[in-house]
């Protein structure tokens, strides 16, 4: 991937970050990403990101687990090898429920975690460019990608005005994952206004 130029602004409080995000987006800049030390609730909405559909994936994995477990046990007990266990029925549905439930949970959990890692491109030995080493500690780091039209100096001054205590320019390979902001983020003027 080609190297790109980024303007990196660090904030030390999320109360400063929120208005800054709004101002930056109103000014028409596209935010590449905001890196935060913890899950700042509402930041995804402020950035105009859509809800994740990870839970839907979890549901699909779950019902697959239900189907596989119930189907496999029924096939084994009814058709493949009908065992006579104390004269009990060959299709004891209530006795199948525990295993069906466990398999549902197992597939759903494992599937969701793998999907999460895939979507976010997380995994052992994954190397990424980290814009600030304090983003996992106490800084809230906003990264804006520069296009050919961006006036870097203007942008830097603008970001300082919004309350960033440190602004610098970095050249890096952009990290990617499925659902990047380029595709997801709507410009603020296109968003329906919420009361």
């Amino acid at each position, binding site marked *: 991937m080609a190297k790109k130029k980024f303007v990196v602004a660090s904030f030390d409080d999320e109360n400063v970050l929120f208005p800054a995000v709004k101002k930056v987006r109103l000014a028409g800049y596209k935010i590449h990403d905001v890196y935060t030390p913890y899950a700042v609730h509402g930041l995804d909405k402020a950035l105009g990101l859509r809800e994740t559909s990870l839970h839907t994936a979890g549901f699909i994995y779950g019902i697959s687990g239900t189907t596989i477990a119930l189907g496999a046990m029924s096939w084994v*007990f009814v058709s493949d090898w009908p065992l006579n266990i104390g004269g009990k029925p060959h299709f004891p549905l209530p006795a199948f429920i525990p295993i069906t439930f466990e398999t549902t949970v197992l597939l759903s959990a494992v599937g969701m975690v793998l999907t999460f890692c895939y979507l976010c491109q997380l995994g052992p030995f994954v190397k990424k460019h980290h814009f600030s080493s304090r983003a996992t500690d106490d800084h809230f780091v906003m990264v804006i990608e520069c296009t050919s039209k961006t006036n870097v100096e203007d942008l830097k001054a603008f970001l300082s005005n919004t309350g960033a205590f440190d602004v610098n320019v970095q050249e890096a390979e952009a990290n990617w994952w499925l659902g990047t902001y380029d595709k997801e983020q709507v410009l603020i003027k296109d968003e329906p206004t919420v009361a």
Partner: protein
Amino acid sequence: MSLLRYESQLREPLVDGNKTYHDVTEDICRPIEGKPGKLWYIGFYISVALLLFGIYSVYREVVYGIGQWNVNHTVGWGWDITNFVWWVGIGHAGTLISAILLLFRQTWRNGVNRAAEAMTIFAVMCAGQFPVWHMGRVWNAFFVFPYPNSRGPLWPNFASPLMWDVFAISTYFTVSLLFWYSGLIPDFGTIRDRAKTKFRKFAYGIASFGWSGSTKHWQRLESLSLVLAGLATPLVLSVHTIVSFDFATSVIPGWHTTIFPPYFVAGAIFSGFAMVQTLLLVTRKVLGLQGYITLGHIEAMNKVIVLTGSIVGCAYLTELFMAFYSQNQYESYAFFYSRANFFSPYGWAYWGMMFCNVVSPQIFWFRKMRRNLWVTMFLSIVVNIGMWFERFVIIVTSLFRDYLPSSWPYYYSPSIWEIGFYVGTFGLFFTCYFLFSKYFPVIAIAEVKQILKVSGESYKEKMDKLEEEPVEEFAHAAAH
């Protein structure tokens, strides 16, 4: 979002001391980045020694057979399955804290969930040993898995509670591990970014999966942990329910009862919280984390202990009543001759259990006692002893007098290798816990930061002003 910040002044802060985000990172990373103290080494070596003794005990059992244990014709389960149920029970508190309390929005869980989940995983690892080695011919253990095999294919009996156990325990272990690790990823990222040595950067770099803290990733992680919590909540209830089915579906007096599932689940949470208390009281003191695991946390857990202890007490009394009310001679014999009888060979175990589990936790109705560290420490150990006796009583007193008096043994007591196996699992558990407390963040760093401005002591003071503001103005100012 700031509306979520509003919290009553009446609640005590969850993070003591005037801490900033950076202080939180510093405090929790300090033990990982420094050298462990002398106590750590002593504890660790003792644990490894116990583990080695356990390995030798298991080795003898594998080489010479189950005859190395004193389990016999009627008491086929003995210590082994007692220990299995005991460890599985302990393994329930972690998921309860991390999943159920997450769904109930109990923010005090954020300080204790990491260590409790770790404890869960280690306890389930210990529990899993018992049924596996109890198989005797352990090299055939893989027969429990349903896979197309060259023996027919012959399938396991899916309608058997023992088979349900295989699925329940393995699912529970896997899901707990995933839940725990997905929460650890951001914290490993924090340690990686602070790492001074090359090795630490490399190791935590691998462990952190390249975590960056991106907003989208946080959004997905939050969604993931919420759904995992939703899945783990029925799962944790199902696991001990299924363990209780091992007993309840059989026609053994004292086992064949429908109250077993709720009774076992309550007992599991009871003993699990007691173990969390034992571990955290020591951990917070040694690692200096009193600001994060506060007296409030300990009090909250003691409340859970008194509640679940009382539920267990109700179950004991219900069992006794039903044994009398059913007028079934075998049930009456199991309860009124073998158990609740001072002169029966195991009467001492029954009354010991009654005292430890039902009587002693009642002291936690007093606030002063709930907030007393020594009382908590002492009682947490008493409760765990009591819960061990509960399983011992259920298994041994029902088995040592079966339907055929000629096969009654006078007394069952374990052999040294049976005890060695149990002691060995303590070694395994504490070896893992010592390594955890040295190399892992024992408190969820990111999650504590999340509640810092809601419940941190320094921020709470500022909330006096907020309380005076009219709500409309506050909402208006907070809306972005």
